[in-house]
């Protein structure tokens, strides 16, 4: 089937503003989702599900969250780890305090709580920009992790300081947290949940809110002059971004790892998510997914390659080389394609539309 839009006429603006205006894209997406929802659970083994697909989905959500703030609204944040911790610990307190609350509601409420914290730490963004703001978000990072680490109330006074997700069902008979939960149920739940949230994010960025954010990002003075209130736009970006990141943190703790301590959300986590959106593409929802996939797969790939080349190599060396390759890739992407994988994908599609002609 050729990738052409010739002959597809749009008769209203709604069709023109659809997320996938081209028929072939819609077919492709449909097939892809079908594959992800039916074929993957049937075929993939536990290793693939638990170490690749589940963290990929959780990270994608975190990357979407950060991308809303940094990619769309232009407010650089280094506090992602802190906000993920918020989500994880809020969800833990909620789930243990109200055992009857449905787990999906727990996740959403944890997101709402994190959004509140996000607004609080977003307030300085009204007076400061760029690097100053980045440093201010470091305050959130260090302070939040300290809070969750220091006060045993957050872990229900467990001596280890670790929270373990209580067992919960998404629908009767299907556990998504706790030890009984099978990777397949976890994966299917995450896939649906993250897909819905991604759709919400996409809707927000292509509507009024997204345009206000991008206007603030591109030129804040002009944005104010067309009537955008900077206070409103920036704080809403902080709130909604934190909402997504908070949910990602809760999913991390409850579904991916099952048990977690505050120190799992230190500043490296913030960088990890930041790298995802740089490599995936700033200001792109698709890019958030691509970046997450890249960052999740790369260490596994590097590990296996290095072990294949030299089976005696020490894990410390592997992790140092990994560090360097990450750093080099960031720089490479910034130089070669600052808009990341999403832009490469778009270029490929544009080329495909013209194929086999060069222009």
């Amino acid at each position, binding site marked *: 089937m050729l990738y052409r839009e010739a002959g597809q006429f749009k008769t*209203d*603006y*709604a069709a023109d*503003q659809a997320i996938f205006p081209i028929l072939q894209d819609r077919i492709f997406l449909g097939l892809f989702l079908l594959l992800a929802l039916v074929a993957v659970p049937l075929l993939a083994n536990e290793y693939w599900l638990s170490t690749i697909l589940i963290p990929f989905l959780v990270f994608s959500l975190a990357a979407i969250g950060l991308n809303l703030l940094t990619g769309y609204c232009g407010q650089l944040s280094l506090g992602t780890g802190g906000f993920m911790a918020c989500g994880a610990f809020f969800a833990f307190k909620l789930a243990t305090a109200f055992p009857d609350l449905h787990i999906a509601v727990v996740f959403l409420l944890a997101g709402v709580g994190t959004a509140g914290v996000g607004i609080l730490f977003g307030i300085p963004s009204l007076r400061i920009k760029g690097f100053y703001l980045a440093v201010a978000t470091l305050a959130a990072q260090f302070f939040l992790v300290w809070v969750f680490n220091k006060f045993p109330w957050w872990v229900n006074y467990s001596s280890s300081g670790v929270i373990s997700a209580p067992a919960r069902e998404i629908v009767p008979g299907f556990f998504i947290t706790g030890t009984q939960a099978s990777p397949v149920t976890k994966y299917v739940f995450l896939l649906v949940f993250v897909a819905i949230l991604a759709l*919400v994010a996409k*809707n*927000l960025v*292509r*509507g*009024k*809110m997204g*345009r*206000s954010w*991008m*206007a603030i*990002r*591109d*030129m804040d*003075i*002009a*944005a*104010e*002059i*067309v*009537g*955008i*209130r*900077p206070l409103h736009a920036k704080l*809403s970006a902080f709130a*909604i971004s934190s909402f997504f990141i908070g949910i990602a943190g809760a999913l991390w703790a409850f579904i991916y790892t099952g048990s977690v301590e505050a120190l799992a959300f230190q500043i490296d986590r913030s960088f990890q998510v930041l790298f995802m959106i740089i490599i995936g593409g700033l*200001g792109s929802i698709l890019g958030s997914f691509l970046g997450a996939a890249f960052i999740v797969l790369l260490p596994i790939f590097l590990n296996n390659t290095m072990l294949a080349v030299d089976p005696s190599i020490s894990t410390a060396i592997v992790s140092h080389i990994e560090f360097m390759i990450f750093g080099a890739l960031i720089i490479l992407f910034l130089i070669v394609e600052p808009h990341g994988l999403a832009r490469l994908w778009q270029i490929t599609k544009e080329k495909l539309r013209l194929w086999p002609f060069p222009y």
Partner: protein
Amino acid sequence: MSETRDRIGDTLLAVENVSLAFGGVRALSEVSFEIREHEILAIIGPNGAGKSSMLNVINGFYHPQDGAITYKGNKRKQMRPHHAAATGIARTFQNIALFKGMSTLDNIMTGRLLKMHRNFLWQALYWGPALREEMEHREAAERIIDFLEIQSIRKTPVGRLPYGLQKRVELGRALAAEPDLLLLDEPMAGMNVEEKEDMCRFILDVSDEFGTTIALIEHDMGVVMDISDRVIVLDYGRKIADGTPDEVRGNPAVIDAYLGVSH
């Protein structure tokens, strides 16, 4: 043009004794003038005369130390720019201030943000009332795109457009807000003759079709004399003349200011 002049109504905005200083530098000293409904008012003057500062005061970007501005009957000393936008003041800039990462259509849609009211929960669904609202405003944006004849660049990121077209998109964004008062800061700077003619036509059409009140800054005297109903002249932050193009043209103070004769 005479048709336009017939429609000129009451005072829309009055500037009274406005003074503005940056540190020790006086940008405006006791400037007073008014802008009347439906007219095209040109503000001219040599470089550094305070023309842009005047526009910045009107739309709330600078706050004058002295004086007051009466807009639609409400007297104010200062306001925030987004508040000015909410009360129907739109503007373009001398150096283009478009949102470079967004498409032409999205830029024009930002001009309509103030008219969109669905809350973010509806926006998140992008369905029902939110979708209807979006489509309504898309139609309005498309009318402006047709008006400015920029259909073919609808989805192009504005950062990639040539200068003349960017100016046009910026005008489109201002028009999208359906302003009562449109401020244009050198809308024709850096354009070739053909582009200038187009821009003149758009400005006159805006005045005729929408009845928008326009205040513009321009250096090209030919253009100013052709399209404006009234001209005020600033020099060293003071108003030195105010009248019809013909009156101003003959004013000796204006001639001195432009030719640099002693003050």
